[in-house]
Structures are given as C-alpha cells and as structure tokens.
C-alpha cells in the first residue's frame, strides 16, 4: 500500500543546541520502520526519472522496492552494483538537485527521501553484514590512481573488480581525500570512510600514503615502474584568498587549513598535538558548503559568535539548503549582502575585526545570478578574532607542471574528453582536477567513467 504522505518521513537529528557542542553525527538515520514507511512513498514509476538524475545511475526504484520487502541486503547489492560508496553518498550527495529533483512525488509535496534510504541501506549493511571479499581473478595489468578522494576511490574500486592491480598514491598520511580532510565528522563520520577504504584494500587495491605525485615520483616514472595507465583524481585543493589587506594577520585561515586541522589532524581531540585557534567571534567568508562546514566547526570548537559573510543574498547561496538550515539551527549568524574590504589587526598582529561593505543586487551576471553591487560609503566593522576564507579552491599545479603533454585550461583544470582521457596517452583524469571544485558524486561519476575507459584502453593496447 503506497504511503501518500506529501512529506518525507522525518529523520531523527541531534538537538541543535546539544550538537553544536559536539562532533557526533547530526543526522541519526532511519530505523527499519522509518525506512519502510519512506520506501512505501516510492511509486516505482516505469520511466525512472530518478535514475537518470543520478551521475552513477543507481537503480533507485529497484533498491527501494527491496526495502519495502525488508530485503535490505538485496537493496545494498543493487546500489553497490553501480555505486561503491553508498554510506558516503547517502550522507553528502546533493540529492535535491539530482535524483530527488526528478522524483514524480516532488511535483506535489516532497520527493521520496532517496538519500536517506540509501544511507539506511548502507548503514544496515555495515552494522549487520561482514564483508565477504569476492574472489577476483587478477588480469596482470597495473593501473596507478593518483589521489584517494571520491573519484580515485571509485575508479580504483571499479578497476579492481575488473581484475586490475591498482595502486592508489595519496599525498597525505591518510586515504580519503576531501572525505577525510574537508567534510567534518558531524556530517560524515571518518570511520565510514575508513571502512570504504578497507573494502577497497580487501579487493586488492594497494594504498601508498605519503606519496606526492609530481614530487616523490612523476607520471613518467609511474609508467617506467610498469603501470599501463594512470588516473589523476587529485582534486581542487588550492585555496583562494581575496587579496585584501590583512589576510596574513594571525587568526586568518583558509577553510582548507581550518578544516584540515580539525578533520584530518583532529585538533578537537585532546590527545592530538594539533593546535587550533580558540576563537570567540569568527567570520566565515563565503556561501558554499565548505563555508557552512567551517562555520559549524568553529561553533563546535567553542566560538560564541560565528558569522557567515556572503556578498550575495541567501537565495544565491551555493550551499545546500539543508546545510544552511542546519547551520541556522545551530546558531550561525548570517550576514548576507556584505563583502569584506579589509581585515584589521591589533598591535600584536592578530585579527581585531573585519571591515565589510553592504551590497545590493543588480542585473544578472554571467552565472545567471544577480550581480552584487557595493553601496558606496556603507563600510562597517564586525568585531571578530578569527576570519576563515572560504571563497573557493582550484586544482593543484604539482602534476601538470611536471608532466609533459598534459594540457590544462587557463584556470588550471586538466583537459579531458568525454571518456576522461587527457591529452597524454594512457593518462586519464576526473573529478575536481578536471571540473574545478564540484561535488562528491560528480567526482565519483567521473571516476567510474574513467575506469571503463582505462579498461578499454588497456585491452585495445594489448590486443
């Protein structure tokens, strides 16, 4: 019997005023009953618009039908036949602009909670099933994957399942890329990422941490070691600054540095040596998901006031509505239509305040959003002791500057065709390294596509 409720079955969450003081996960996940109730909202449409909205084409109505029948492990198999990181995607995917945006139920009321159901299935599997490593026959061909973020993990997993001997090279001391250094514990517990990495290792994927391609070894040297193809999934990790006065004052961070100290280096735990600023008032500059993550992290570290300073209005914010909602619930103060003009410091060289200028919205710009225009003479100061710059990142030049024949755009993104092949034979690329900063699921989709292309490339070369 279909559930005709117009709204999603609510997912339990930690109380905002408790969770803004801990790093435990915010959303607690569905119980079996809730999952079945929500699954019953799916109409199992014939033409499956949701699946076409998924970058990795998860067979959504099929897995949801299995939940209705209580066959959770079957649902898991359906999801993982095209998506190797369901516990991650169920949490951080932007379903509202992808699968859920196409859901027929969304025409009147809320779409089916596809992301929540995916998460339920993945969590149920992790809690109840011990992974059996499938016996995979190795084909004797070696592939190198650079970077262990979403695109690299996906590409490596798909290739390993096809029998390739895959080595992942990771610059940091821990695998996971943005999933471990960027996205906070309270949105994506690191134990889940660790489990996904271990699953890959049980498939025979070798993970070599502390290995910076472009420095420790070049792509040419990777080929010399006997690898037949390379996938570059090195992401977009280079932080941008505004270029305004005061950005080198003590207390100014890039969001990357702030989040890495807390997420990867565990500055919030006493038994780790990593230092982080003890802030009273924090201004986070930017309106994306990373800005929300940084703001909510600062709040959890004890800041009394955390402001989001964003030059456009809330309607133009690139962050997910859910993240904005969570941030507001947790007491983050939004100061939209304000653009920083300079950061002011005290005698000790530490941040004292940030000066912003009020903005108003003018005509639409190239992005289709209304262009923010400064209101002259409206500069005013906000008293803060910490400023976190979260205005975007771009791809790291380390690889392209050390690899002949690898073309990049003027913005530093690697050039790759529709099959993820770069301008250098045998070298493929995908994810943020190609697109510039985007989403986890788009990177995974690119990693998947690249795995297919690499398989084809190696087979053709050896035939």
């Amino acid at each position, binding site marked *: 019997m279909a559930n005709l409720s117009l709204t999603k079955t609510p997912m339990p969450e930690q109380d905002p005023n408790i969770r803004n003081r801990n790093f435990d996960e915010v959303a607690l996940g569905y119980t079996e009953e809730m999952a079945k109730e929500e699954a019953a909202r799916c109409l199992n449409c014939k033409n499956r618009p949701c699946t076409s909205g998924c970058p990795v084409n998860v067979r959504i109505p099929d897995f949801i039908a299995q939940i209705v029948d209580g066959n959770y492990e079957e649902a898991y198999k359906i999801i993982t036949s095209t998506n190797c990181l369901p516990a991650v995607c169920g949490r951080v995917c932007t379903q509202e602009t992808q699968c859920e945006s196409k859901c027929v139920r969304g025409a009147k009321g809320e779409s089916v909670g596809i992301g929540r159901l995916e998460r339920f299935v993945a969590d149920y599997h992790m809690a109840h099933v011990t992974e059996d490593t499938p016996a995979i026959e190795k084909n004797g061909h070696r592939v190198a994957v650079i970077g262990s973020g979403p695109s690299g993990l996906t590409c490596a997993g798909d290739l390993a399942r096809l029998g390739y001997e895959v080595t992942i090279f990771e*610059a*940091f*001391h821990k695998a996971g890329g943005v999933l471990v250094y960027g996205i906070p514990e309270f949105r994506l517990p690191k134990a889940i990422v660790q489990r996904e990495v271990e699953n890959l290792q049980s498939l025979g994927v070798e993970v070599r*941490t*502390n*290995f*910076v391609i472009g*420095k*420790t*070894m070049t792509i040419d040297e990777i080929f010399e070691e006997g690898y037949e193809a390379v996938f570059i999934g090195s992401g977009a*990790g*280079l*932080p941008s*600054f505004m*270029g305004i006065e005061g*950005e*080198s004052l*003590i207390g100014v*961070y*890039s969001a*990357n*540095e702030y989040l*890495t*100290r807390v997420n990867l*280096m*565990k500055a919030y735990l006493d*038994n*780790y*040596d*990593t*230092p982080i*600023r*003890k802030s009273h008032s924090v201004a986070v500059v930017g309106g994306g998901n990373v800005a929300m993550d940084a703001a909510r992290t600062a709040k959890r570290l004890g800041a009394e006031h955390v402001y989001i300073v964003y030059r456009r209005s809330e309607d133009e914010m690139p962050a997910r509505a859910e993240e904005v909602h969570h941030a507001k619930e947790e007491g983050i103060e939004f100061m939209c239509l304000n653009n920083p003009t300079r950061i002011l410091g005290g005698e*000790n*060289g530490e941040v004292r305040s940030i000066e912003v200028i009020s903005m108003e919205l003018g005509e639409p710009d190239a992005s289709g959003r209304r262009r923010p225009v400064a209101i002259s003479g409206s500069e005013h100061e906000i008293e803060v002791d910490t400023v976190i710059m979260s205005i975007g990142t771009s791809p*790291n*030049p*380390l690889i392209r500057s050390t690899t002949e024949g690898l073309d990049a755009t003027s913005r530093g993104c690697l050039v790759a065709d529709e099959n993820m092949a770069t301008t250098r034979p045998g070298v493929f690329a995908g994810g943020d390294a190609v697109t510039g900063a985007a989403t986890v699921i788009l990177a995974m989709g690119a990693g998947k596509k690249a795995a297919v292309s690499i398989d084809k490339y190696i087979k053709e070369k050896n035939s």
Partner: protein
Amino acid sequence: MFKIVSKRQLNEAVTLMDIEAPYIAKKARAGQFIIFRIDEYGERIPLTIADTDPEKGTVTIIFQAVGTSTIALAKKNEGDYISDFVGPLGNATEIEGYKNVCVVGGGVGCAIAYPSAKALHNAGAHVDMIAGFRNKDIVILEDEMRAVSDNLYVTTDDGSYGEKGFVTNKLQSLIDAGNKYDLVIAIGPIPMMKFLAEVTRPYGIKTLVSLNPIMIDGTGMCGGCRVTVGGKIRFACVDGPDFDGHEVDFDELMRRNAYYKAQERESASHPCRMLASADEAVKEDK
C-alpha cells in the same frame, strides 16, 4: 612506517638522523624539505633535508628538539620507526650560474646551509661559508662544512670558539675586504636572515633566504605557510622555501610563526621553538 637507520647527537639539543626513504633519497635536491609525523597523534612538521644517500636509500635530517614533535623524535632510537615521512617538497635551491657565493648559517640553520653549500661547491662555484653559533658547545657540522667550502669562518657570540662576533659582522668584513659575491644564501633564525639581508642590500648582492613557516600539507593545500614577498602573498611550500631576502616581510613571518606558541606552552611545558630561535637570533644580531 619509516625506519630510523642511524642517529647521532650533534650537540645537546641537535640530533642527526638517517631515515629510510628510498624514493625521497633518489629525488631530493638541496633546499627541499620533508614533512614528518611521529605517530597518529603528532603534528606534521616540515624539516629541510640535510643530505641524502640514494644508494642506501636514506635521507638525513638534522633538527633541534624544541617543540612537542621534535622532542619526541629526539627520543627515538636507531631501529625505531616513525609513521610518516613525505617529500621531497618545495623547490630546490637555484645553484646554476653562480661563481662566487657566500653561504651563511646560524645555529641549527647550518644543517640547511650545508647542503646548499655542498651543491654549489659541486657545481664548481667558489664557496665561502660563515657559520655562527652562540658558543663553542653548540658548534655542529664543522668538518662537513669545511669540506664543501673554500673558506669556512666560524663565529661565536661569546668568542669561545672561532671569531667572536655575529655572522652579520663577518659578512660585512668579507665584503669590506673586497670579496665580490654574486650570491649570498642566509639560513638561520628569522632575525638573523632579516639583518643579513640588510647587510647585502646596499651592495645589491642577490640574497636568498630559506623560510620555514608553519604548514600542514606542504603541497599548497592549506595556505598556512603564506608569506608576503615583494608585497605579494606566496606559499612557502610550493613557491619557496627559498625567497629573495630583500623582498620578504620578516616581521610578519615572525608573528605568524609565533601563532601557536601559547597553546604549545600549554600542551607541554617546554621551551618554545620559535621563541628559542628568536632569542638566539636576537642575541646574535643585537
């Protein structure tokens, strides 16, 4: 895991270690650095590479035990392992095309000045070296530096060894004596580098300094190591670590490096690294 192959105490506070890291040993050039992490709970600490042995596959690091991680590292012994060791990071020191160079090291900075001097010496340059220390007890690497320089001048603040005085005075006297250097490399505490750059500025002698700001990843990702050079923000990890000493905003660098000193004092009651080196330098250069 990375094995400590050998360990040698150079003075009471300064330790030399050879770490097994064959890929880095093969690749590293003078001026580049590594980042180590002692265990799961440790920080990522950058250290400039002092030497390499590509055949043995070892990388030599020399460090002063003054922060949480370096104190812990100094307690490790031959045969022990540390969890992480990554590199070679940063750009190599430019050595091509110089004929007459003066390399200046201050204190433990000599460990970084030494490989640069060696690379220049091997490239055929005439190399004078000035190595400054507070006193006789902390002199390090004297034989090594002598072997790669045409003239080695050791100075001590108190005159207990070599010439009494500061490296700035010595460089000034060498310039006054008619030495025509086409490059000066200065490596040591920040105030020492700052004042050395002032010695060479009037003569327009190109002066390179090696900066070691706070950083996390060492690949351009965190931006924590940003320094102002010629009015522009640069990342020491990918744009450096060597910069034109006449362009660096040393005062800002000193403030930024002191960023976490209060917290570090809290976390362990030990003398802070930056304070120690700053004090040392102030003594050297006052």
